[in-house]
């Protein structure tokens, strides 16, 4: 019975021997990294496979990269992907299963294919961007107008970070003495808690949004840079929807995260963020200087203009009164002449008419008198013809008795003394 039983060590060695076959050695396997840590030069980690729908872990294995490989692999990986070999990213590793009598099963990684990780990161980024785009929020923050100047700056960073110090130094030592106001809203800037921590800080800032012109998210510089934490949908959506313009300075040139796409402004480094803010303030100052200069210029111009005008008036004044009198006099003369012209124009026809009337009046008077005279002459002749003298001259005579003309011979008794008047002389006789 004793001989039949194996020691645990023997069993474990047997298991180890069974595992040591081609099917488990130097196999390329894809997995997600978790709990990555370096101890004694060796890198230990957990490899996970998650259900893409539910996120639950469907497979798990311990793994290690021995110190002899670690420095080569980590440097190559970072150079190719721009990422630390760190928790949260997907990797393709060349692994061999090994069974240690004490520590049990683990995978020993001898190589890593960074292309897979690059592809995965790119795909992840693209998925997040497409989702933000389809939700219509991708460009919300980018479209916000950055206040000019943005002097009140809410900073999200980690307090001890070198980048934060650089940022403040740059900002407050600006040569133009721009008056910046900053406040640090501390957040974890690397590792798994980054996204949640930055979102918390954003929420705090949002409660006092009217105190700030913009938000600057900067990371603590240094060599360590796992940007993957910033390729997070929730964080990107948060920044995109944020009511204040967000400036992101978390990486260097080549490390473009989703956050860089949604932020109002993306700069390479914290120092660059500070420089940008300073240049903005400088532009505002420059505008003030320009306005001041132009104001002074237009004021000077204006006063000079008025002065010239006054001087001109002054010069005109002495001659102006004389000219004015002369002008009035000439005006008066003109009017007199005009008046005379009008008078003659109006009166002349009347005079002519009067003259005409006078002439015709004379004529008519003369002819009237002539007519009367002729008429009178006619009457005179008639009178003369009818007069008793004319009758007498024709041989007639008038017989009177006692001075009375006799018309009937019978009325005169005989012996009456009669008086006969002839054309020339009178005869006295007695009737028989």
């Amino acid at each position, binding site marked *: 019975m004793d001989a039949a039983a194996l020691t645990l060590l023997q069993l474990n060695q047997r298991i180890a021997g069974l595992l040591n076959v081609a099917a488990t050695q130097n196999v390329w396997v894809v997995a997600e990294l978790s709990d990555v840590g370096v101890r004694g030069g060796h890198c230990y980690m957990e490899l996970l496979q998650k259900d893409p729908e539910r996120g639950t872990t469907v497979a798990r294995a311990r793994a290690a990269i021995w110190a002899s490989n670690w420095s080569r692999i980590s440097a190559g990986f970072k150079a190719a992907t721009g990422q630390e070999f760190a928790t949260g990213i997907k990797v393709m590793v060349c692994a061999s299963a090994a069974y240690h009598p004490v520590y049990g099963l683990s995978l020993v990684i001898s190589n890593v294919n960074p292309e897979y990780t690059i592809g995965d990161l790119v795909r992840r980024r693209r998925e997040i961007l497409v989702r933000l785009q389809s939700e219509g929020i991708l460009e919300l923050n980018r479209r916000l107008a950055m206040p000019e100047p943005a002097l009140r700056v809410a900073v999200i960073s980690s307090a001890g970070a070198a980048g934060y110090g650089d940022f403040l*130094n740059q900002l407050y030592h600006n040569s133009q*003495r721009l008056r910046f106001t900053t406040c640090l809203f501390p957040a974890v800037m690397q590792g798994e808690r980054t996204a949640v921590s930055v979102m918390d800080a954003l929420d705090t800032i949002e409660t006092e949004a009217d105190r700030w012109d913009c938000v600057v998210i900067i990371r603590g510089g240094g060599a360590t840079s796992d940007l993957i934490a910033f390729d997070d949908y929730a964080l990107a959506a948060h920044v995109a929807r944020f009511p204040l313009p967000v400036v992101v300075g978390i990486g260097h040139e080549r490390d473009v995260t989703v956050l860089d796409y949604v932020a109002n402004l993306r700069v390479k480094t914290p120092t660059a963020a500070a420089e940008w803010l300073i240049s903005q303030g400088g532009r*505002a100052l420059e505008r003030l200087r320009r*306005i001041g200069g132009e*104001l002074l210029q*237009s*004021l000077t111009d*204006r006063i000079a203009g008025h002065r010239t005008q006054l001087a001109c008036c002054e010069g005109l004044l002495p001659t102006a009164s004389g000219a004015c009198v002369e002008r009035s006099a000439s005006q008066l003369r003109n009017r007199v002449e005009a008046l005379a012209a009008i008078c003659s124009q109006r009166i002349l026809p009347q005079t002519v008419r009067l003259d005409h009337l006078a002439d015709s009046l004379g004529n008519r008077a003369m002819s009237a008198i002539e007519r009367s005279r002729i008429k009178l002459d006619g009457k005179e002749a008639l009178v003369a013809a009818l007069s008793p003298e004319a009758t007498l001259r024709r041989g007639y005579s008038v017989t009177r008795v006692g001075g009375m003309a006799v018309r009937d011979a019978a009325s005169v008794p005989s012996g009456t003394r009669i008086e006969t008047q002839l054309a020339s002389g009178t005869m006295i006789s007695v009737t028989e």
Partner: protein
Amino acid sequence: MNTEKPVFVPVKELSYTQAVNELEAILRLMQSDECDIDNLTAYTRRATELLRECRGRLTATDEELRAILADIEK
């Protein structure tokens, strides 16, 4: 001709943007023929006041600067 005295909002009540915009407006006014010589002094005084306020909001005095820097370098 506009002979009314212009009425101004106290500069402290203006936002920076409002103040700069007003400055630009005064500048335009001074460059146009609308500006009444009677009000030139008032406008100039106002513009100076706005400029001083804007510049004051943008830049810190020596004293403030020292205080701020002392704070950072603690």
